[in-house]
């Protein structure tokens, strides 16, 4: 997506429009995301994000050396640990319905401040990746761990706040 210099209203509209079609190389992200948004270049949130992607990640970072700036905005999914996650997961779902998904990449940076909340999966899922930096992010009321690290190595996860995540079936929690 081309970085927008237009007014906030038009920018938000176009972000919603582009986010809705999914699989674009995002730069500026905001509005409603209804199919997984694939990010392959440095990107940033320019507005709050509402995710309606069923059974898949909201944002998937699919290239190495990418930075995602949250810029103080909020990403909201479709589950809530406070209300038993719409019944809660009974089996380990694949793929997870997570907020930000990083699989098999190196040197990804996810930079807060920003809030990632109410996803049926983890807020952030780093799997089989290496050298990621996740800093200054708040993850809350997600139905798996706030930040989940599966395999991989060399991550720096610092200065984050992880609160009220979890479910009643699988061992999970903050990080």
């Amino acid at each position, binding site marked *: 997506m081309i970085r927008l210099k237009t007014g906030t209203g038009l920018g938000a509209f176009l972000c919603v429009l582009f986010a809705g079609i999914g699989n674009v190389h995002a730069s500026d992200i905001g509005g409603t995301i209804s199919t997984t948004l694939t990010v392959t270049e440095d990107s940033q949130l320019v507005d709050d994000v509402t995710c309606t992607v069923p059974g898949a990640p909201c944002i998937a970072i699919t290239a190495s050396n990418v930075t995602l700036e949250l810029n103080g905005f909020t990403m909201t999914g479709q589950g809530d640990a406070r209300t038993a996650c719409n019944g809660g997961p009974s089996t380990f779902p694949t793929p997870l319905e997570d907020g930000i998904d990083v699989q098999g990449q190196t040197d990804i940076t996810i930079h807060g401040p920003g809030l990632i909340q109410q996803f049926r999966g983890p807020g952030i899922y780093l799997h089989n990746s290496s050298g990621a930096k996740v800093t200054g992010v708040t993850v809350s009321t997600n139905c798996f761990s706030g930040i989940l690290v599966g395999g*991989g*190595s*060399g*991550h720096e*996860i610092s200065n*984050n706040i992880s*609160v009220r995540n979890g479910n*009643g079936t*699988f061992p999970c929690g*903050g990080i």
Partner: protein
Amino acid sequence: MFGGASRNRLRRNRLSGNGYAAQGNNFGVGIEGTGTNDNIVEDNTVTGNTNGLFMTAGVQGNVIRQNVIVGNPPVQVDLDHPSTNGVDIKNLAQTGANTFRGNRCLTSVNGPCPAVKRQVTPP
């Protein structure tokens, strides 16, 4: 962390209110599964979770230092769900397989608690 996640550093995070009482192995920080080794968990504040730090059998080489891990679970969970048996540090790994240094904690399974004095240790 699970599935062989290794050589990661968790530093200066604040983790609270995580986990369901019905899932007694929920946690603030989790180190789980074979090969999840050689991670550093330092300078974190971990309070009010089902368990503070949860380590499964078989993990090794992890260094847990200079954390404040207290109040896990909160007293109302202890009172309302006594079967949860949550603690500040639940270490199911072999004794001595991981390093605990300079943490403040009060309750544990196979962990060095209570420890109320924060020690200065070299990085």
